[in-house]
């Protein structure tokens, strides 16, 4: 352990400097762009050919009400909950509204992204820190950050989409009053119509044109006690399409005269293409064209299958990867990061004592992970003389527009992006590589629309992976409590890589995402230090459901279990003892999951493990039960207790919690991406599988609503899963597994 001599001074300086940086970033946004610019209301991007756009979230035409939900629907239910925010205040008929994604636009910036980026533990944010976070919303606004991520969609939309509905309602009432001479105070709104005192109904479409000429009034939002839609399970707006095969995913876009293509890029990720011979592909039937993309090729065929067959047949000489060739060498490079000064010590409380006999020490490892969305990466594009149109499922449509424009030499204003349903996102579709490749293929065949669909192997082997990481923990228990805890985490930085791709620079300063899930947990530990070491490694890494929490929660919550064991304490009681003094909502989810799971009583041949993580503003506790089935392990049951604060749709929250758990358990038990010869070794679901119906546990969810601040729900179910499972395996077998996936050490029922 290295220890600098000036710790007290540094500690003061750290807090001061950090606060200063955050505050000046907010102010600088105002100064640099002009305060007027930061306060300016972004223009309404909607210009309907028919009907009226009363604000960026609401179109009313002869057919009725259409709500714009400018977030990616990737399964998490945004097209239902966000539409309900507008419908609640508008008094629209929820069963009759239509929902569209709408165009990429500044108006749809995600104002909740910055608060999540504040370098403090979210459970302990002060009102002043939250205020700073809100002021920092000018940055996503000025940068047009229309992004679906960070479990922020509902938090961001909660006020503004209700306001969109409320101002439209009051404007429509004014239009009705002006037309009929009725007293506005006597007007009601109901099921998509203004109702006059005599009972006459004026449907919104009849009033919309007149309403558009009226300045929207100031409105007061309804008290939640008056809500009729929010707070209860609604039928999802996307459900009927999705069970009838009529939902259009990116891969389903069909255009007149469209060609089908695929790509085959250098599997040594980021490496060059030295040469290629298209002749073997062109000799196959149905292969129309091979296009040179510089670091790979595209093949155009009569069908996607012909294109994929052709792509395999092209003879290519690939250049080397810009990173070590094997997993062993890559892990060695990650381990070397421990030797350099840490990038962050975002937790630095008390004094870490020097090592002594009786200390508990452990080293953990997690592998790279692929997102493996069900729908492989794809995009469709049409290049015309002076414009480009792109269709795809994307979590970042403005960035996609700008990057596609850059790739084909157009102004962003000449590029249109149509956002479809996403066949899974999990962070993978926050990238723009698949859209840019399609734009470049389209650029080579102007006038012809082309759909570019990746093979599963191409998708699996060209991801932006959850980083591999190594963590070293040392701790000491005394009197049943954690006396000291020191953690060091080494991995390549998602923040730096992704910002480099997005903006061309890597942000300086402490990387919160790298250590989230470890430094920011509500445990009472007097002497506690968490250091983040960034490994300089060119393996592409990206946002994978719950990001840093996905690995750090495994490290932290496995080690908490080890400390509980060392203290001779019950693991759940041990957690409660440390969490209760710090954060009451977190303690309550632990208490709830103990009660739900019958903690402390195990049927013969079974055992339970627990883990807890506060992430994306939501505390989640999970218990996983495993059973010995003839020497193999079956994951039999799981219990989740969460507290995301005010819940807008409990059925969707429950579904997201189960989804997050299953995603995390799949990775923990089975998944890893490894490298050999500079290439990813895995290529399909047969070697990168997930839980299936017959191996999925029974899951029970309890949702508490005591958290005073709304948290996210799309990601927080994932972080505790791996540790809960590993801790259950320990309870069952006595084997403490510190390396994922667990199937490297134990056998699971297949």
């Amino acid at each position, binding site marked *: 352990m290295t220890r600098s001599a000036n710790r007290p001074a540094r500690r003061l300086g750290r807090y001061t400097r950090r606060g200063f940086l955050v505050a000046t970033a907010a102010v600088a946004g105002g100064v640099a762009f002009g305060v007027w610019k930061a306060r300016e209301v972004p223009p309404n991007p909607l210009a309907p050919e028919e009907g009226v756009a009363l604000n960026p979230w609401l179109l009313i035409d002869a057919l009725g009400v259409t709500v714009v939900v400018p977030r990616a629907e*990737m*399964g*998490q239910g945004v097209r239902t909950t966000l539409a309900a925010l507008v419908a609640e205040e508008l008094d629209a008929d929820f069963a009759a509204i239509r929902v569209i994604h709408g165009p990429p636009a500044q108006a749809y910036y995600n104002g909740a992204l910055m608060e999540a980026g504040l370098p403090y533990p979210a459970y302990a944010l002060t009102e002043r820190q939250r205020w700073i976070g809100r002021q920092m919303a000018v940055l996503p606004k000025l940068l047009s950050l229309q992004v679906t991520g960070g479990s922020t969609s509902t938090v961001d939309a909660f006020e503004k989409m209700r306001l969109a509905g409320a101002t439209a309602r009051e404007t429509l009432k004014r239009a009705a009053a002006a037309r009929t001479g009725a007293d506005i105070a006597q007007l009601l709104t109901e099921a998509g119509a203004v109702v006059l005192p005599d009972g006459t109904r004026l449907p919104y479409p009849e009033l919309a044109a007149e309403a558009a000429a009226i300045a929207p009034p100031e409105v007061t939002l309804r008290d939640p006690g008056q809500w009729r839609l929010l707070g209860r399970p609604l*039928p*999802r707006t*996307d*459900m*009927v*399409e*999705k*069970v*009838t*095969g*009529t939902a*259009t*995913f990116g*891969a389903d876009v*069909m255009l007149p005269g469209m060609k*089908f293509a695929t790509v085959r890029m250098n599997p040594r990720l980021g490496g060059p293409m030295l040469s290629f011979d298209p002749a073997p592909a062109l000799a196959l*039937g149905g292969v129309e064209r091979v296009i040179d993309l510089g670091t790979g090729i595209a093949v155009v065929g*009569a*069908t*996607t*299958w*012909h294109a*994929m067959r052709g792509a395999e047949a092209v003879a290519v000489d690939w250049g080397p990867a810009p990173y070590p060739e094997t997993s062993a060498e890559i892990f060695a490079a990650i381990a070397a990061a421990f030797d350099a000064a840490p990038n962050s010590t975002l937790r630095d409380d008390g004094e870490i004592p020097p090592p002594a006999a009786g200390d508990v020490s452990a080293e953990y490892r997690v592998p790279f992970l692929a997102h*493996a*969305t*069900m*729908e*492989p990466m794809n995009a469709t594009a049409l290049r015309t003389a002076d414009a480009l149109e792109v269709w795809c499922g994307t979590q970042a449509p403005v960035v996609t527009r700008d990057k596609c424009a850059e790739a084909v030499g157009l102004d962003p204003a000449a590029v249109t992006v149509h956002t479809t*349903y*996403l*066949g*899974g*996102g*999990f962070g993978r579709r926050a990238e723009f590589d698949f859209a840019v490749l399609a734009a470049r293929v389209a650029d080579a065949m102007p006038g012809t629309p082309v759909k570019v*669909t990746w*093979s*599963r192997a191409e998708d699996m082997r060209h991801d932006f992976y959850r980083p591999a990481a190594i963590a070293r923990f040392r701790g000491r228990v005394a009197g049943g409590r954690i006396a000291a805890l020191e953690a060091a985490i080494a991995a390549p930085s998602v923040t730096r890589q992704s910002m480099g791709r997005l903006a061309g620079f890597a942000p300086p300063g402490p990387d919160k995402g790298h250590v989230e899930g470890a430094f920011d947990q509500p445990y009472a530990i007097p002497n506690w230090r968490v250091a983040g070491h960034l490994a300089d490694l060119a393996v592409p890494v990206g946002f994978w459901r719950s990001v840093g929490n996905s690995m750090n929660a495994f490290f932290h919550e496995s080690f908490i279990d080890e400390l509980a064991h060392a203290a001779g304490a019950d693991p759940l009681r041990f957690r409660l003892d440390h969490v209760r003094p710090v954060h009451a909502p977190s303690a309550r989810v632990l208490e709830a999951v103990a009660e739900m799971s019958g903690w402390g009583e195990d049927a013969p041949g079974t055992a339970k493990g627990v883990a807890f993580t506060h992430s994306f503003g939501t505390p989640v506790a999970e218990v996983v039960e495993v059973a010995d089935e003839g020497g193999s392990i079956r994951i039999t049951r799981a219990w989740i207790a969460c507290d995301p604060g005010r819940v807008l749709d409990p*059925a969707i929250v429950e*579904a997201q919690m*189960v*989804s997050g*758990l*299953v*995603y995390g358990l*799949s990775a923990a038990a089975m998944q890893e991406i490894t490298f050999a010869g500079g290439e990813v070794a895995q290529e*399909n*679901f*047969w070697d990168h*599988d*997930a*839980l*299936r*119906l*017959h191996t*999925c546990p*029974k*899951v029970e969810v309890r949702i508490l609503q005591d958290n005073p601040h709304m948290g996210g729900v799309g990601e927080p179910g994932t972080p505790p899963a791996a540790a809960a499972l590993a801790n259950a395996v320990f309870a069952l077998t006595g084997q403490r597994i510190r390396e994922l996936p667990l199937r490297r050490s134990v056998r699971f029922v297949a």
Partner: protein
Amino acid sequence: MRLTVNGTPREVGDDPDLPLLWALRDVLGLTGTKFGCGVAACGACTVLIDGAAVRSCQVAVADVRGAVTTIEGVGTPEALAPIQQAWVEHQVAQCGYCQPGQILQAAALLASNPNPTDADIDAAMAGNLCRCGTYPKIRAAIRRAAAMAQGAGP
């Protein structure tokens, strides 16, 4: 090459090796049948041939001997089949990409086994992957569809 798809004879081009999946999607524009893996490892492309569930990515059009049913032939948004109603009742889908394959796999199970046990459901559905983890709801919807067919009513 001619196939009967959802009760209608369709021309699917002249390449006998073309997998049924791509004939449906790229030639006929029936995009309800999904491409997930191309190697029969995920079940997203499941369709029925004479009532039996098959992975359409692994069947060449020349080898199709029988009537093909895709998700578009099961029911429509205006006229849902009972199994689709069960899926809606249980609000199964999240991203939804795997669900056409799940529904056709379940339809084949229920056609041959109207009252499946949990073990029957496990065995029938093991080949259909869902990355959103909707499995508990899929199981519940299959039970519901079975009950509806047994006359338990909606």
